[in-house]
């Protein structure tokens, strides 16, 4: 499931983030990649413990806290520390790859299964050419780029790439989520049920049907979730 969640970051947050990134200590993105990913990865990344990275991470996690859609769609259990990268100039692409299935949090060595990949766009598509996130899903290939502050969710299992940026710079924050519901299909059903229930509740109030279906949602979640 590819999902666009708009406006996770407020305009103020985006301005703050961009200011922080303007003179951030960028390093070669390949430094964090294994020898095989190095072959296709060509971007720049912020050291994960630098001041700018920490502040932007805080902005993003606060943004996520505000996003009910994000919670409904991901049903998060664990989050892998968000990172920030930049594509542009001669470091302008990240070829087709599949993310590590499991990542280890540098803070505490805890393992995070990367069920869902997330990208939060930190600048507008007007600022650069190219740089589409291309995701090969079961439905075929999708190319997306969204407004600054928007977020895109896609399955960690998919082969994806960031296409070369041919003008300007693409700034983004990216991270992974281990969901309580491991299966992408089950998570998607729960999300659709949740969204339609929401509409039902908004249009007709908390009817008996809505309450019963809410029970169904919770029972499905109980059946599938691993907390």
């Amino acid at each position: 499931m590819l999902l666009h969640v708009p406006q996770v970051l407020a305009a103020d947050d985006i301005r703050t983030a961009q200011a922080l990134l303007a003179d951030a200590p960028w390093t070669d993105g390949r430094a964090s990649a294994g020898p095989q990913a190095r072959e296709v990865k060509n971007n720049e990344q912020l050291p994960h413990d630098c001041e700018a990275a920490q502040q932007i991470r805080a902005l993003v996690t606060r943004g996520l806290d505000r996003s009910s859609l994000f919670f409904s769609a991901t049903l998060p259990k664990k989050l892998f520390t968000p990172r920030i990268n930049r594509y542009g100039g001669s470091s302008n692409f990240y070829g087709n790859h599949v993310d590590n299935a499991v990542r280890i949090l540098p803070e505490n060595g805890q393992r995070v299964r990367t069920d869902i990949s997330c990208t939060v766009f930190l600048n507008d598509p007007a600022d650069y050419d190219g740089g589409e996130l291309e995701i090969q899903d079961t439905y075929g290939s999708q190319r997306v780029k969204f407004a600054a502050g928007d977020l895109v969710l896609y399955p960690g299992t998919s082969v994806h790439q960031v296409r070369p940026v041919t003008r300007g710079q693409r700034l983004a924050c990216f991270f992974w989520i281990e969901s309580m519901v491991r299966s992408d299909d089950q998570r998607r059903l729960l999300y659709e049920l949740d969204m339609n229930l929401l509409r039902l509740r908004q249009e007709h109030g908390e009817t008996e049907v809505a309450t019963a279906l809410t029970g169904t949602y919770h029972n499905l979640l109980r059946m599938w979730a691993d907390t």
Partner: protein
Amino acid sequence: MSRHKNRKQNPAFTQTSIAQEASKSIAPYAMLPLGAMMLAGSMSAIAQAAPEANKTLAPVTVKEKAEAPEGKDTLKVERTTIGKGNQLLRDIPQSITVITEKLIDDRNFDTVKDVLRNSGGISFQAAEGGEEDIKLRGFSLQGSGDVFVDGIRDPAFYERDTFNNDRVEILRGSAALLFGRGSTGGAVNQVNKQPLLVDQNEVDFTLGSHDYRRLTGDFNLKTGESSALRLNAMTNTADNNGAGSRINKRGIAGAYRFGIGEVDEFSVGFYQLENRNGINYGIRWIKPTSASPTSTSQLNGNLDPDAYYGMASDYNHGRATYGTLSHVHRFSSDTELKSTIRKGRYSRDQRATLWNFAGAASQPGGQAIGLNNFGPGTVLTRSAQNKVQDMDNLYGQSDLSSKFEALGYKHELLAGLDYAHEERKVYGAQTLTTAQTAALTRPNTTIGTPDDGASIPEGTRPFGMTQNYRSNGVGIYAQDLVQIAPKWKLLGGLRFDRMQADYYQFNANTGAGTSAYSMNIAKWSKRAGVLYQPTDLASFHFAYGTSFNTSGDAYSLGATNASVPPEESQNLELGTRIESADKRFSTRLALFRTTKLHERNTDPLIPIQVLSGKRHAQGIDLDFSGRITPQWEVFGSYAWIPVARIDVAAEGAEGLGQRPSLTPKYSGTVWTTYQITPQIRIGGGLNFKGKQQPNRNPGFFSPSYVTADLLAEYTVIEDKFIIKANVTNVANKLYGDALYTSFYVPGAGRELQITAKIKF
């Protein structure tokens, strides 16, 4: 209805719409989705969750599994280190064939010679010294030290094994800019396996015809966040390699790499290969009758390729040992400096038999031998062909690669310097006493008694040093690839080499010096090219490069060649590399013309060598590799050289106007595999080569041939246990593999090999 249709066609888009609609309808403080109501809270708290108390989790292997895997996993690669630095193949304006470990494994290539045999444009000379002289486009490779390991010259003669190879790269055409002297026909680079940040191990055991047994182990251990250890080991024995040489060898290679992917990366490696093989020095060409002219000479179809008429005491012992230290410093994402030091010692001790048909008087019926009276009773005489030599080399090189923008253009700069110290000692047999001569004389044998077990104490033959060659060379080069327009790149490069060599000759019996020569070289090499890359799938190039061969290429000098300036060569190439839309399949095609100007020749009037010769080879070579469908994989390499000519020649050498020897018009290979079910994979391939003359163009040809290979593989446990069977040369075709004027070494006959592959 239209909405429904839309949903079917583009569900992801519809998802987005739902989300947008939903988010629009969620007013501040309005209802929340159930998932959010339940979970709304601090993401940072989730991010900082405490370590789990549950310690019973299965071990987790963390792999960066990207689309550019190691040679184990693919037939097709996109990058190479052959051009120094680490470059996209599409950015190198020159023909490069890459044979990966997967192909090496699929086809059971256990020697580098096997690997090369399966590439277009390669041929082999069965040289006088028993050395495997490799020709590429008809130009000598190994004789000029154009074999490399990890981009570092590896000029010693030994039977190279593939056990530690991730891939073998063949670069065609002049490339002195990158490698310095040599490389008229091109260069062969063996890329050693690197420690990787994964835990993976593999053990392969192969049993085959002629009691073939080969055991290899490849162990990679991740020792830390950015460090890893890799160990490869091999042992291999057989009564016969299918072409008359027994095999007995073992090798070990280890490397430890730390700081992988970090600012400073180090690696320390060790390699040792020991061969205690036998040797089939060669089989005589045979004429239809002893009275027929030499030009009617042909392969002997009445002899099985595995028939051996040497002595049981013959041997071909070699040992290659080297240690390597390397360091990469990454100044930024765009600039890195790689420095490597390698010290190597190589020894070769060959005691071989060259047999000949005994004279008419000794043959049954008193007739000289031709194919008409050849039979089990034919008597063979055996003579010694010994070669003992050692090499001791030290190499150091530093290569800087950088990308930057200057004067409004994007540049990719490659620059470096290298140092080489090479020392070669050759030993010759000392004069024997009468008693020694009696003991060391090889007895006659007959065709009816191959492998007769006759033995002499060959190891007791006394040797003394006869030649000592020492050289010091330095080279400095720079190359810039400039993006002059969005789709166009220009390449220009220059290299300067300085080399000083001393050569001494000694009397093998007394050790007294007999003569000394020295050589001084200072030489520029050039490279220029233009690349047109209309899309990221297609790249076209036109390029020009030069190279030079010194008199010291074969590590020997003499009165006739010590002061002769280097031979010069140039290569013109028009080529393209095109990838399929999914980049799983790529093809390469090049039109080339390689010219050797000022070839060394012996002037018949004055007994010294002069630079008067000229020859050229012109043709097309092409490769294709990759997956056509997820199940169907192919690899092919083909060279067509319709035009090859000796333009200026001296008498006594290969004649004026002739096609150079060992330059077949066409040669190549195709290989394909198909995964029928998740368990079963089958494969097959062909190797073919046009007719070719042995060295010195004696006027007869080794005929063209095609051989076929088959593979069947069964996966017993996915990614754990695989069994496969290979049949090579299915039709047991007789062909001349390595050729010399008076003899040839046949290609191996039919062989069956069964391999068990265990991964853990």
